[in-house]
């Protein structure tokens, strides 16, 4: 753990908090998010974009009575912090009271997750990333395909200090390598890996996986849209979890009556268990939220039955419970969000998942998904980078991409088997850990030319 960096962030948060309290406010909270990140991007089997960033943002939330104002700045000098406090206080001075304001959170017991930090990722150089990219390209060259993708490494320090005594800070690292291979005759393939420690990512292996799939999807044929049973690879399952988290597992969504979640209601089959756990080392750990509250493990779906939702301080106050540590930076009209969703593995091998399809489709990943009817979790999107027809439990060959319009709740209910292997991948906002799944029906509603 890089204590100096986290300590610097906390000192900055405390300085901003002190400026806020000098404005005579009732409550105040300073959040510091500092990052040093870099990303090497490649296309047509060469590096074409290569960037690095050093950034720091101070977010200040102040409360006068029950009136809340929020301001942020990238200026971290004393004058910048003084202006920040003035701006936040000025806003709080003119807004209406929030009648159900529950107050800033009190201190909670937090302890760092050592597995959330890697010195090798923190020190990742442009040359390190270029080495990995060349390994991906070499795998593509060997297979006669062309490589596209990106390799990102990042060091993030977060600190929260508030007037109720919260003082938390931590530094974590993340990395992600993704690649799309494109081959002759229209074949495309995808592979991805995310990790705390970038040096654990086997770039050549990722490159080979995508290249092999690009070869296997050449000369895809069109099939009729309709209802098919499917096996979704891990890259596709990420979208299910992300979308369900966005649409339903936020306490604010429940409070605003736009969520499908009802505690005790069965929405999935017996083989579906999903939780959020910011401390699980299998994911990309994050052990406190942006309000400085320790992250709790929250069971979202237990053997198909809705259990809990995630809370921030405000939704928790409304519900008369304590925050689960899922707050995002204020102001936050979207409410709390499960950032570290984890799906329990099953017992099936990949071959067994595919072997259970009499006639169905194997889907590598989804593209450009969007809710059509949020409360029904009805979502549309396209398949991409590897869709295959399966007959008699065997992969027959590649098919052209299809559009689907599918209820993700129906997909959970129709999940018949779960893979025993899982991957750590990046979701909307955080790390997710997912297996492949088999689902008894998926509604494809259109096709395209590739």
């Amino acid at each position, binding site marked *: 753990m890089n204590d100096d960096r986290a300590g610097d962030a906390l000192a900055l948060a405390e300085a901003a908090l002190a400026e806020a309290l000098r404005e005579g406010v009732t409550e105040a909270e300073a959040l510091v998010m500092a990052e040093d990140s870099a990303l090497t991007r490649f296309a047509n089997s060469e590096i074409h974009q290569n960037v690095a*960033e050093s950034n720091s943002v101070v977010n200040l939330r102040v409360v006068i009575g029950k009136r809340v104002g929020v301001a942020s700045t990238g200026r971290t000098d004393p004058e910048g912090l003084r202006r920040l406090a003035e701006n936040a206080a000025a806003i709080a001075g003119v807004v209406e009271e929030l009648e159900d304001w529950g107050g800033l959170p009190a201190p909670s017991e937090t302890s760092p997750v050592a597995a959330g930090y890697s010195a090798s990722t923190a020190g990742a150089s442009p040359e390190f990333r270029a080495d990995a990219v060349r390994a991906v390209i070499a795998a593509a060259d060997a297979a006669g395909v062309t490589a596209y993708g990106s390799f990102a490494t990042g060091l993030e320090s977060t600190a929260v200090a508030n007037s109720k005594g919260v003082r938390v800070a931590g530094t974590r690292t993340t990395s992600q390598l993704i690649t799309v291979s494109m081959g002759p005759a229209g074949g495309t393939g995808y592979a991805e890996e995310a990790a705390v420690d970038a040096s654990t990512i086997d770039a050549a292996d990722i490159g080979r996986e995508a290249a092999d799939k690009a070869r296997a999807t050449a000369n895809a044929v069109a099939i009729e849209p309709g209802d098919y049973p499917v096996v979704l690879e891990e890259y596709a399952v990420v979208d299910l979890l992300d979308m369900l988290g966005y649409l339903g597992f936020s306490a604010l969504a429940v409070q605003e009556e736009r969520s499908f979640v009802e505690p005790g209601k069965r929405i999935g089959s017996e083989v579906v268990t999903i939780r959020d756990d910011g401390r699980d080392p299998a994911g990309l750990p994050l052990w406190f939220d942006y309000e400085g509250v320790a992250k709790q493990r929250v069971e979202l779906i237990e053997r198909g039955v809705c259990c809990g939702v995630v809370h921030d301080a405000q939704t928790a106050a409304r519900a008369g419970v304590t925050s689960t540590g899922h707050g995002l930076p204020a102001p936050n009209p979207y409410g709390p969000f499960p950032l570290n969703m984890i799906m329990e593995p099953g017992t099936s091998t990949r071959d067994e998942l595919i072997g259970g399809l009499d006639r169905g489709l194997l889907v590598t990943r989804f593209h450009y998904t969007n809710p059509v009817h949020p409360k029904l979790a009805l979502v*549309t999107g396209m398949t991409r980078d590897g869709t295959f027809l399966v007959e008699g439990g065997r992969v027959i060959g590649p098919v052209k991409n299809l559009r689907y319009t599918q209820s993700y709740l129906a997909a959970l209910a129709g999940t018949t088997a779960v893979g025993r292997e899982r991957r750590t991948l990046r979701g909307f906002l955080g790390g997710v850990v997912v297996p492949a799944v088999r689902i008894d029906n998926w509604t494809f509603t259109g096709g395209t030319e590739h």
Partner: protein
Amino acid sequence: MRDLTDRALDTAAARGAAYADVRVVRRRDESVTIKTGRVEGVASGESEGFGVRVLVDGAWGFASSYRLTVAEADRVAAEAVRIARASATALRQPTRLDDRPAAHGRYETPLQEDPFEVPLETKIADLLAADQIVAGVKGIAFTESSYAAQREWKTFAATDGSLTEQVITHVGAGVEANAVDGDEHQRRSYPDSGGGWQAGGYECIRGLNLRERAEPLADEAVALLTAPQCPSGQFTVILDPSQLYLQVHESCGHPSELDRVFGTEASYAGTSFLTTDKLDEGFRYGSDLIDIVADATSPGGMGTFGWDDEGVAAQAVPLVQNGIFVGYLTSRETAPRIGRRSGGAMRADGWNRIPLIRMTNINLLPKPGMSLDEIVADTDDGLYLASNRSWSIDDRRLNFQFATEVAYEVKSGRKGRLFKNPTYTGITYEFWRSCDAVGDERSYVMLGTPNCGKGEPGQTGHIGHAVPGARFRNVQVGVGKW
């Protein structure tokens, strides 16, 4: 500021950059969010920093920092050169830039009423008044209304002697009514579902007349709860500007980005069906009525500026003329590859991102003849679709599917009953070829989206779209199971 930009460029050149540019950007923003008649969040923010982009041995490097000091300029420029040298270890085609003239001057968004000078109390009161009307309608479960403004001060300098200063101001506001009954959730929003953004001052917000539109909007959201499901089948469809702008965005704007065509977005957003052979052959993109232009000079558009983020002057670039595909959104790097000069479409999301080819204002030009109302009157049997609810399109921008908030039945030239949950789908060029009516100047409005995503690391773009409404024949309406 000149100290910092000069130092960054000098350091980059001294370390081997054949070309370098630096952008210093300060961004200020503020937002008001109101939910169900109460102020839920008010925030202001500022961000400042600089980014240095270098070309070394034909390879790109970029580094950026929030520390605005000369010493940091040295460090960042040196880091950018180091990154470019790492890029060169996996380079197959060295980058060549077109020879645009050096850029000099200043541009500022024209506005009448500085949104940051309008008292915050006034902005809150204006929005709250509209939101409370919506929230007060029986059957409304919750509302969400928003106001936001953003201003960027941007200095661009390059080793070719370019130096420009720009001040760009964008504002937006909108109201949204939500009605819920069991599993049914219906929404109506105004002026569009993207937040009503334009380039300009607070006069744009006043011009929206949010209060006047609030009650009918809420009534319609409630009525949708009991409206019949939109029928499925092949229909004549009239798209309101509040939906048509996103149709243009997704199915013309993005596929016209030449970087996508060359594969440099393949691993994230995808590529494009508008390959360069289609430019050469004069591909029929749409019917004869379709004229689409990328115009960075359009008044009020969020894609309007003086120069793009590599110093190319704002211009209007035809993309589709009389239905024929004729041009791309281009950069200094990509344009020479098709024998053209940059059309000035490189835009970056702040100081810490590189410029990418982005849409400017992608406008579907009006056609003299019928207003949108007259197009409705000219339609015997069809559906009128308004306000986007969801969107999706494949990775080559061919198969699209949109949902709108509402459909109105059109019979014998009149808009009639409401249908809920409308969706429509198609293949881009087949859809645009089916267009048989485009509205005239009377229904031509500037809209836009403030959240266009592209690139890795992710960038959010502010894009303008002026559109008049249009009619399409034989459109597949209704997909999925409800």
